[in-house]
């Protein structure tokens, strides 16, 4: 799903993006928060105007590793756009992980969009060659990305030009 989203983003004019696989971020587990900030990850997020999170749902919640990684930054997130693509094996498209993740993102200072990506039956979404089997996801992802890019654009202007008071 992340590769599908990445391909869709890369088709958008004027947008540059990169994939972050959080499994590749070496973080200790005996501490948390900004004390264990990983400089390359922080730099990438710091340069970004928006984030698209592709999140698998486990037992109605988000992966602990994702929370561990997100907690390592703060200033890099403030007033930046974020959208979530929930992925589940069942039929609800990760709606429960999305709902559980929203308050975390809000506390980190991110601004959530009102479109979500909902990917149900993850094991049946793609064929053996990674080809998407249901083309409806293409149009849904396009709507999701239009909103994310709009929000990212507006918030960038706001961060740079609109003072708090």
């Amino acid at each position, binding site marked *: 799903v992340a590769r599908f989203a990445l391909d869709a983003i890369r088709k958008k004019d004027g947008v540059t993006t990169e994939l972050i696989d959080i499994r590749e971020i070496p973080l200790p587990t005996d501490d948390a928060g*900004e004390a264990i900030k990983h400089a390359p990850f922080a730099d990438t997020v*710091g340069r970004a105007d928006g984030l698209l999170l592709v999140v698998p749902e486990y037992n109605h919640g988000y992966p602990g590793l994702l929370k561990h990684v997100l907690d390592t930054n703060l*200033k890099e997130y403030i007033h930046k756009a974020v959208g979530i693509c929930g992925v589940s094996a069942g039929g609800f498209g990760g709606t429960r992980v999305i709902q559980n993740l929203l308050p975390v993102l809000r506390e980190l200072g991110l601004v959530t969009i009102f479109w979500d990506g909902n990917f149900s039956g993850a094991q049946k979404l793609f064929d053996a060659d990674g080809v998407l089997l249901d083309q409806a996801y293409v149009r849904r992802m396009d709507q999701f990305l239009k909103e994310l890019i709009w929000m990212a654009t507006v918030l960038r202007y706001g*961060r*740079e*030009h609109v003072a*708090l008071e």
Partner: protein
Amino acid sequence: MGRMAANKMICPKCGDEMNHHADKVDYGAHLDAASVASADFGGLLQEVHTCPGCGNVEMRAASG
């Protein structure tokens, strides 16, 4: 004139005047550095500034 207008942060990377666009309570910050302004919030109240020139983001403790 607000307090930020009188105390603009200068970008340490490019020298441009930064824009103060948010205040955020940082619950993970070391509270021994907390200002008087933070006492009301249960954490360190941080100003968030973004540079319109290079996009750099800086935080500093709110001055109250």
